[in-house]
């Protein structure tokens, strides 16, 4: 653990820019370039950092007569000011894209992205504590900053983070124990993570029809969710053009529509139910991990007022 007096983010950003990283810092909505940022607000950004590893649009192949070009994005990026839940979400995305057949596009981006996260101020919608996360957990990030007034405590998490920090002067190492600087936060929202058997029992329960009444089947919850990874592959351009992949949502009716017009999840309540089963049961069975980090974006920005904590509490009853 190191300590730094003064504005550490500024020095770190300048250092990284000198090593030709492109540095991004959060504004209230998403991550913008460091040069354009006026101040760096605390708390979550509306769009998670998923868009830096799995962009909403990604050209896989440019084609003409045959494959012309396969654009891999090798730009070196640094994301400073990530909150712990997004950093943890990246480790979940890794489980999908880096296991089994390696996804080269995701892999090149992942290797070229440095994640510098910091302690965050949870708001009324956060419930990351229910999944073993705290505003101070360092999982998934390379460097972790704890800002305490004028002083910033710096924890190198990965070897890559250590290498970066070793080249920055003005860092004094300190042995202050963590408990003194960690602030407890009591979360108003709670979720009981181990409800897998309840979910299995309640698959055909009537509650899903009632709950999905408010859902308007838009893609907001899945697009803002840091752990939703589904995508669609489309071609654009008859003779020459590009094959790209774009975010897709299991809430859209076309997601499972087959060309025989059979649609396994035709009804709105089936799609909404699938979102809960996918994150809290199916991925536990296939990857052994709950695909939710409790960031609360899907509650805050749901136009219909679907509250994941309320529904999971009802499943548990």
């Amino acid at each position, binding site marked *: 653990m190191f300590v730094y007096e003064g504005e550490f983010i500024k020095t770190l950003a300048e250092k990284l820019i000198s090593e030709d990283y492109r540095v991004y810092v959060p504004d209230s*909505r*998403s991550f913008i370039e460091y040069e354009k940022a006026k101040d760096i607000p605390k708390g979550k950004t*509306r*769009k998670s950092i998923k868009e830096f590893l799995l962009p*909403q*649009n990604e050209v896989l192949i440019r084609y003409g007569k045959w494959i012309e070009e396969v654009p891999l994005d090798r730009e070196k990026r640094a994301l400073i000011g990530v909150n712990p839940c997004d950093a943890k979400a990246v480790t979940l995305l890794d489980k999908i894209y880096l296991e089994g057949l390696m996804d080269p596009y995701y892999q090149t981006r992942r290797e070229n992205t440095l994640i510098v996260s910091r302690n965050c101020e949870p*708001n*009324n*919608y956060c419930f990351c504590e229910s999944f073993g996360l705290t505003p101070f957990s360092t999982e998934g990030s390379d460097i972790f900053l704890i800002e305490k007034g004028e002083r910033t405590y710096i924890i190198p998490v990965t070897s890559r983070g250590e290498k970066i920090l070793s080249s920055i002067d003005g860092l004094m190492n300190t042995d202050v124990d963590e408990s003194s600087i960690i602030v407890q936060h009591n979360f*108003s*929202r709670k979720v009981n993570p181990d409800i897998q058997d309840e979910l299995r029992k309640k698959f055909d329960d009537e509650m899903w029809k009632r709950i999905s*009444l*408010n859902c*308007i*089947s*838009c*893609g*907001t919850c899945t*697009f*803002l969710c840091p752990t939703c990874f589904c995508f*669609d592959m*489309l071609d*654009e351009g008859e003779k020459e053009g590009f094959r*790209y992949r*774009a*975010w*897709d*949502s299991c809430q*859209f*009716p*076309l997601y499972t*529509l087959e*060309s*025989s*017009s059979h649609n396994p999840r035709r009804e709105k309540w089936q799609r909404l139910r699938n979102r809960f089963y996918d994150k809290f049961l199916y991925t536990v069975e296939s990857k052994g991990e709950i695909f939710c980090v409790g960031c609360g974006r899907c*509650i805050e*920005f749901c*136009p*219909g*007022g679907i*509250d994941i*904590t*309320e529904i999971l509490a009802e499943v548990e009853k």
Partner: protein
Amino acid sequence: MKKEESKISKIKDRVAKLLEKDVSVFIAYERMPFELKDRLTIISSPKEVDKISVSPFMVGSPARMLLEIGGIDDGKIGIIARACDTRAIKQLIKEGKIKRERVYIMGITCGGMVNTRKLRSPRFENGRLYDHDREVHMKDVLYDTCSRCEDPLPVLYDEVFDVFDVFEGVSKADESTEEIEGDREKRWSYWMGEMEKCIRCYACRSACPMCYCTECLVDPINLAVSPFTSAEEKASYPRFLGKTISAEDNLFYHIIRVLHHAGRCADCGECERACPMDIPIRELERKMREVVRDVFGYDDDEIPFLAKLDMIPEGR
């Protein structure tokens, strides 16, 4: 604000009495458990009446819910509707999507809805709004729609309840859409900046009571395909816009969506409320209303605007 509680309890009793015989279900709002927001709900028995909540935090368009559950049973459906909701219902009736006699409209006067995204941790106690224990005047944190609402009184109702003192200081759209006018390049760069943020989640389209088409042309996320659709038809379905996300493509999507609302938009602001990225898409709708009123001189006629053909504006 004892006055407030008594008004709401009067509404609850009225809904309970209605539910006994002449209305089978009632569309109302209920307070969400963990936050200061009211969402739509269906009340089907007089017992559930006390979960009704009428407050300046109501989100979701009851007209859209009416469309969704309209076909369930043939009983009468009650609905609590603010001024803009009654305009939407009136338009849907004009378009034949709802039958007037199947709906019992309980209009309420509306003082404007509060945009809780402008507050850090809002609290609402006996009629007063606090954010971090600092009192906030409701009129400054209203939704943009409500602060420029043209007509806060219900236009179509079976009965009206005076719940909120009507928002007097409604600027009759004086600062209309001119303030983004300026020259072309400025407008274009303004809209490119805004449309850059759009993530094409289609919340605006799903939240709008007027967007009820079974198949949308721009990006068919609701392609109506049956076992009898021929392969040629599916292959030749016009794909104007895929899932490419660029400011121009998003603008393409929004322009086509707004064009379909010409003369139909009830200005309820649900699209802006649903948008997770706070894009001022309602400005496009307001421009559409202005063009329909000034250029075409259409003024809430019996025949829907898009079907009225005898208005040829000269010189345009």
